């Protein structure tokens, strides 16, 4: 099975930035013993599920393409960090 390590590094950085920006992760990706980027992988799955993509946990072309679509800047997942950052006008 392909792992995230098979993806070009710039794509991984792009995906990690995207996932953090839109509420899927709050930390940097970490590797497990096999070299898979664990937190990114599970966050990717979450994003793929939300976006209606095939859920693989792998940074495939369809996922990268979806991440490059124009979109709304509001986070898809509103975690505690979102609530902490937002202030009333």
């Amino acid at each position, binding site marked *: 099975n392909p792992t995230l390590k098979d993806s070009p590094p710039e794509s991984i950085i792009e995906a990690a930035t995207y996932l953090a920006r*839109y509420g899927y992760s709050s930390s940097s990706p970490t590797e497990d013993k096999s070299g898979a980027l664990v937190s990114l992988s599970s966050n990717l799955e979450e994003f793929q*599920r*939300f*976006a*209606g993509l095939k859920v693989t946990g792998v940074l495939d072309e369809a996922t990268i393409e*979806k991440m*490059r*679509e*124009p*979109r*709304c*800047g*509001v*986070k*898809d997942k*509103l975690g505690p960090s979102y609530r902490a*950052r*937002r*202030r*009333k*006008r």
Partner: protein
Amino acid sequence: YALQGSRWRTKTLRYKIMSWPSNLLDNKDGVRDVILESFKAWSDVSGLSFEEVGTGSKSNIEIRFASGDHGDGDAFDGPGGTLAHAFFPIYGGDAHFDDSENWKVDPRKRGGIDMFTVAAHEFGHSLGLSHSDVNEALMAPFYKPPSLDRDVIKEDDIKAIQELYGPPAADAAPAPRPRQPSSPGDRQDPDPILCQDSAVDAMLTIDVNGQKRTYVFKGDHYWRLTSSGVEKGYPRLIREMWGGLPDNLDAILPYEEADRIYFFKGSQYWRMTGLKLDPGYPKPISAGFPGIPDNLDAAFKWRANGKMYFFKGSQYWRFDSELETTGRPGVSDKYPQPISIWKGIPNNIDSVLIYENKRTYFFKGDSYYRFNDAAFSVDASYPRSTAEYWFGCT
């Protein structure tokens, strides 16, 4: 759908536009209209109403076009990527649009980002809605190419907004009567023909010199309506003013994209372009509209999907300008279908009117029915009296 968790306590919300898109500074009216339409997309399907106020007035929602870091800790990223963001009610409700985008207010224009689609989505956040994982919903986070008919609010969105603010009040948008004629001299006593028998042959709303005009056709006469009844100086004779159209029309179908109007009677139809009758007409309905029957009751182009529908007796037909199977104009073999599919609409209707491109009204005898395009059924508290609401009869 997903709700963020906060909502407005009032159902009448005020908004103001604090700054404008750089590429549309010469078309502020166009921007203003699109913003209004975007709010209206929500007020059409909920108990909310919206009002624009001046920049010096108090408002619930502030709208800004800004680029890069604009002071809220969430900098925009230039063309593409993030297009806009908005704050949920508990955070103030404001909506910010990335001024680096090539905004457009006309969905027919190629390229650019459709302001209506993005604004309607952002205002969903301003009202308390989070992103939906239903792909076709307006509240899905990804930008979709603009819809010409502005039919962006889907069932998922309606359920979400109605959970927060309930459905539209039955009387939220009654038929056009509140505005009075501009001067007392324009007022006319109730029309004796229409008030005695308010059944019509056909009705038509079209744009004439930039103004929306609504006409009623009945027998050999026609009337122009005001917002409170019938305009002074009517009825007039169809044959004198409509350049050769016959009396006793069956149906009228305006096709505004092409500036055309089709008139149907018996087995024939006439075509007008730019309000002038085209030469070579009448033609057989079977020639111009293959698959559509003669002696129609009514016809209209539905704003929900841009398709043409024809009604006769207890059945209806959908006419496609390009059938998937043949690539030619015609009617799919799925039709005719029973009118009962249009929940609440009776058989043997007289006319259908898309009033000011906003709502679909069906007329039969002395009654009319307001059809809710989103719910696909007649609104509660209908039918109502055509004479009273449309012709100003007392």
